[in-house]
């Protein structure tokens, strides 16, 4: 029991690597899904970030978020580019918002994965819009802001429903929760 507590506090496990690999796998699937505009993505790669919330602690959670960006940009060859900077700020802000909301919600049970997903999507888009104001399109960002936020809200809702359905029906997720509640 004591060993398990130490493991949970200071280490990451095989499950963390699995979540990161799942992010890669889902982003590969997402490439196959047609998009109306290049920046409008469903955000399937964020599904493991949502699903990991009840399983991992804060350090492990942010570790998954950072590694997700790292491996994605490594595979797509955009590690040293503005794409990585935008992904990094978007993902970190959405992860922080989702994690804080989860910490409040898990005690009160007032919010589901749907609310978490919408919050994450909106924070991701807001952070990227701010970066765009600072670096890319300056004040002209206002022309794409509404479209981006609207698409973020819609994809957040879709991903939220998908996360709920997946969490309720997946055998793999049930197993990973059973195994890790005994550790964490």
């Amino acid at each position, binding site marked *: 029991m004591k060993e398990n507590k130490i493991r949970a506090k200071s280490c990451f496990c095989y499950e963390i690597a699995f979540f990161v690999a799942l992010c890669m796998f889902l982003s590969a699937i997402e490439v196959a899904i047609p998009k109306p505009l290049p920046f409008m993505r469903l955000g399937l790669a964020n599904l493991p970030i949502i699903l990991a919330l009840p399983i991992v602690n804060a350090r492990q959670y942010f570790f998954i978020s950072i590694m997700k960006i790292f491996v994605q940009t490594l595979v797509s060859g955009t590690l040293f580019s*503005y794409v990585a900077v935008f992904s990094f700020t978007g993902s970190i802000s959405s992860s922080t918002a989702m994690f804080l909301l989860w910490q409040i919600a898990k005690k009160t049970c007032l919010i589901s994965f749907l609310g978490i997903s919408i919050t994450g999507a909106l924070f991701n888009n807001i952070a990227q819009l701010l970066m765009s104001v600072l670096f890319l399109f300056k004040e002209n960002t206002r022309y794409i802001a509404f479209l981006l936020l609207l698409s973020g809200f819609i994809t957040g809702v879709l991903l939220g429903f998908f996360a709920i359905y997946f969490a309720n029906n997946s055998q793999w997720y049930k197993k990973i929760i059973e195994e890790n509640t005994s550790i964490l």
Partner: protein
Amino acid sequence: MKLLKFFSPISLFINNLSAKHIFFSSLLCFVFLFFPKTLQFSLLFLLIFFILALLKRQKILVLPQIIISAFMIASSLYTPVGQVLCTIANFPITKDALFLGLKRSSFLCSMVFLSQYAVGKNLKFSGTFGNFIATVFSIFSSLTSENIKFSKQNIIKVIDDRLFEVYEKQKINLFQNNIKSSYKLHQILLPYFTPIVISLIFFLLQNPFV
């Protein structure tokens, strides 16, 4: 193709270099990207990194870069600054705004080409971080090893079955091969992320697009 033939000795030299050395030298080049303050130097850097990426990969996609550059130049021209060069449908094309747009877009494209040059198939990281990345790629490879046959009714079931199967198989594999499956987080993050985080801070402080 003629260009590639002309540079073939350099291409051979690049392909013989260790992937890790290319990665870390590119990280250094990334910092140098911030120094040119004139358009001419920015365009020169763009040309150098484009050629390097082309020599290494033989084939690179330029259309996304052209689209984003066009958007950036158009966005820059929207706010007229400096001498009017010409007018297109009552819209003035100003010199300073055009140069600013070109400089910003050349910086962005340089970054993309540098990234494409930096990351290769044979890139392997050493130490704890390397073990972690190897585990991630091994799981990813198992997840994508066979084609998934989707149908309207069973998308989630099919994905779930694959996840369950790979999760069990890889876990047994790790234990059988006695591969370390737990590490301290700072062991992974510190050696590789410190230079990347420093570069990011540099990027944010320099604000190269101004």
